[in-house]
């Protein structure tokens, strides 16, 4: 927001529209939607206390902002909110024994090794 709010994305007036028509997409990439959906699905299944996740998210954002400030004078450039969410969720999954570091890396390598053009 260093250049001020983008008013083309922020209709100050006009009817409240459904999220899709709010002038901006809820998610910029499919993985952002997936990690959000996984987090909420687990929460609604009663698998963790929201505060546990929130504290991790706050820590991830704080760390990320420190990195950004060290790298550039423009504090909002390259801001990766959903990357912070993903980091927070990975920590939660590790702590709860859902995805330890080794298990996760093994699965990542397995997915990366898929041939190009694989079917999702």
């Amino acid at each position, binding site marked *: 927001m260093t250049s001020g709010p983008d008013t083309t994305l922020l209709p100050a007036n006009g009817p*409240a529209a459904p999220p899709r028509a709010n002038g901006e997409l809820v998610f910029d990439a499919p993985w952002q939607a997936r990690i959000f959906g996984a987090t909420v699905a687990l929460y609604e299944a009663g698998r963790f206390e929201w505060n546990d996740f929130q504290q991790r998210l706050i820590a991830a954002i704080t760390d990320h902002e420190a990195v950004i400030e060290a790298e550039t004078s423009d504090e909002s450039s390259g801001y990766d909110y959903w990357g912070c969410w993903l980091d927070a969720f990975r920590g939660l999954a590790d702590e709860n024994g*859902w995805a330890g570091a080794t298990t996760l890396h093994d699965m*990542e390598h397995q997915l990366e090794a898929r041939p190009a053009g694989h079917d999702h």
Partner: protein
Amino acid sequence: MTHEHEHEHEHDPRAIRTEALERLLVDQGLITSAAIDTIIERYETDVGPLNGARVVAKAWTDPEYRARLLADGTTAIAELGIGGPQGEKMVVVENTPAVHNVIVCTLCSCYPWPVLGLPPAWYKDPAYRSRVVREPRKVLSEFGLTLDDNTEVRVWDSSAEIRYLVLPERPASTTGADERTLAELVTRDAMIGVARIDA
């Protein structure tokens, strides 16, 4: 966008990590991919500012509802069948000619999902989160909202358990309008407190 690597099929490591986490969770029977699909669809299509607009319009037309809403936001919002994650403890703050309220989450991105949906990008931006506390009038003016010098600005930080919703001032020109018509005038930004409702 620059590409350091020219591999056609190189994936975003965040996408790979997300997919790996989803697989591990599903393999353990903790969640299903269908449950994730349902939640994404819910937040992309159903949960959004229209819910908050219904709450505001009802408060504008029903003084008893307004009183209940200001006394116990969570319960009054639930009367309209609205609730869910990030709406467990709702506090509604009322704008008046003397007081203007605006909400923020200084530490992360806490936001009242059931009434406003997911937050816009600027709400999560470090600049908004720090500046609206430090210099609220300046930030609001950048949104096109200039406040009278005599108006007190209250900034509500949603970082704790409480989620806030701003009850905007009803435009004077809407006398006699019904709830449905009024709901169409209520914007997300007005319910965050970065805009006024003009009619």
